[in-house]
């Protein structure tokens, strides 16, 4: 039941997103660009932070193997 509700919820979000994409894509191209661009900048910055943690761990492992 929980899975079904999750599926329905995600499907509703997808329909809403498609609707917004069609409306803003047709009438408000710059609004659409903002939606896509803001999502992109948040995801890339978050990925950058996760990448930092990975780099940090690798550096610590290297230092550990030297000592």
């Amino acid at each position: 039941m929980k899975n079904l509700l999750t599926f329905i919820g995600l499907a509703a979000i997808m329909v809403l997103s498609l609707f917004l994409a069609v409306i803003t894509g047709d009438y408000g191209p710059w609004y659409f660009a903002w939606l896509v661009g803001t999502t992109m900048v948040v995801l890339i910055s978050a990925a950058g932070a996760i990448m930092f943690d990975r780099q940090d761990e690798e550096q610590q492992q290297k230092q550990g193997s030297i000592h």
Partner: protein
Amino acid sequence: MDMLINPTVVELSRLQFALTALYHFLFVPLTLGMTFILATMETVYVITGKQIYKEMTQFWGKLFGINFALGVATGLTMEFEFGTNWSMYSHFVGDIFGTPLAIEGLMAFFMESTFVGVMFFGWERMSRKAHLVVTYLVALGSNLSALWILIANGFMQDPQGGTFDPNTMRMQFSSFIELIFNPDAQAKFVHTSIAGFVTGSMFVMGISAYYMLTNKRKDMALRSFRIATLFGVISSIGVITLGDALGYIDGQKQPTKLAAMEAIWNTDYNTVSASWNLIAIPSRSEQKNIFEVSIPYILTPLLTHSETTVIPGIIQLEQEAKPKIVNGIKAMIALKEYNLDRSNTQALSTFKQYENDMGYGFLAMQFAPDQDLKKINATNLPSVLDKTAKDTIPNVWVEFWAFRLMVAAGFFMLALFAFAAYFSLKNEIEKHPTLLKLAMWSIPLPWVACEFGWITAENGRQPWTVFGWLPTFVSASSHSVGYMVFSLIGFTLLYSSFIAAELYLMFKYARLGPQDDHHGHGHGSAPAGGGMAGQPVFAKPSMDRK
């Protein structure tokens, strides 16, 4: 309309609005950007489960909270100012302009204000994911707030979605869709919102650089720096792209703004080799640039995105305005006659014929004898036409230099973010103290760019409050000079105290940094920061601190 308009009161009203708007916009961009940066940090916390990202969100959230509170305080007065100081404007376009303002208050501002409380106090009261949703709602709410304000501003720049009704003597809604999807509003919203992202990025990057230089919580500083530089470099590209789009849109709707922005006095019909002024000293009285450094072959593609579009110069635009002024005078006289006698169908018909130029008739009022258009005759008409035509051009010097300073700051920030992101991604940023110092000292730059951006947008729209329809000259309320001076001094003192409070608190808590602040709480000192009092800030030691 029969009462004489005092130009001093109009100028003082303009000065007061410019002052309050520029003060207010010292707080707004940081809110727009910081909310999404906080959401990014919290996203990483929810994905990785690492405590340090929670600490980062809470620390930067505290600085955001100081700014948010003062931003709200300065914004509230502005909405009332439309009614108190710009009553003719509010009467003329209130039906249209008031709608996005009301939606902003009822939808976006209430949403952002409600969830900002939950964001600050809800850390221990809800799940990680639920809190993350709240943080995103704050970010969305603050940017939606900006959206509705900029839709209202878009109407002032390019009045779409409204028509003038001669029976009510005001502009009324014709299309809500046209209002919200106005290209000027769209480009301006994205440009402004992303400028806020750049401001937030520079703020976080600069303070993180300070922590690295002073060896304070480097674990947090390095991670914050990484997020801020990536956020900043992409946002800077976006803000420049949207700036170009906004210039292109404005150039089509407001050729006077474009000509002033580029100090183009004469039309160059040789579009391919037309020169773009890199720097210039424009002279309004001589109608030329006293000094200029120009680069050929750039102007037309840069401004019109084509090789063949002719860009009209200021002198040509003044000449083109004259027939509109004549039509506008006819429209305004006919409108007045119709309002004295509603059965006068001839007057209504004449008004309808020249309706599209009625704003130019309003504009001519200030140069007509006793501000009465009916007193314009064959003898004084050329003088009224000349003065009114010259008045259709904004202050060229201010427009030219405000635009250039904004652009210069924008490109400098892009370069700074690019270098900082490059060295951060290589994990070598600490080897470049000069770059860190530059990042720290560049913190004020996005604010400078934002303020000059608004000066470019609003000075360039002059002499209109609603472009082509309602001049600034007739938009102001009929206060006394004494009242305006008194309220202007009051606002200056009040807002200056807000700025002083913001700077004091920001410097205090930024200098203290998360580590020192943690000790303060640990020793049981009273938690400062008003709204954030009592929340657990950086209290838990992190395993992955260096």
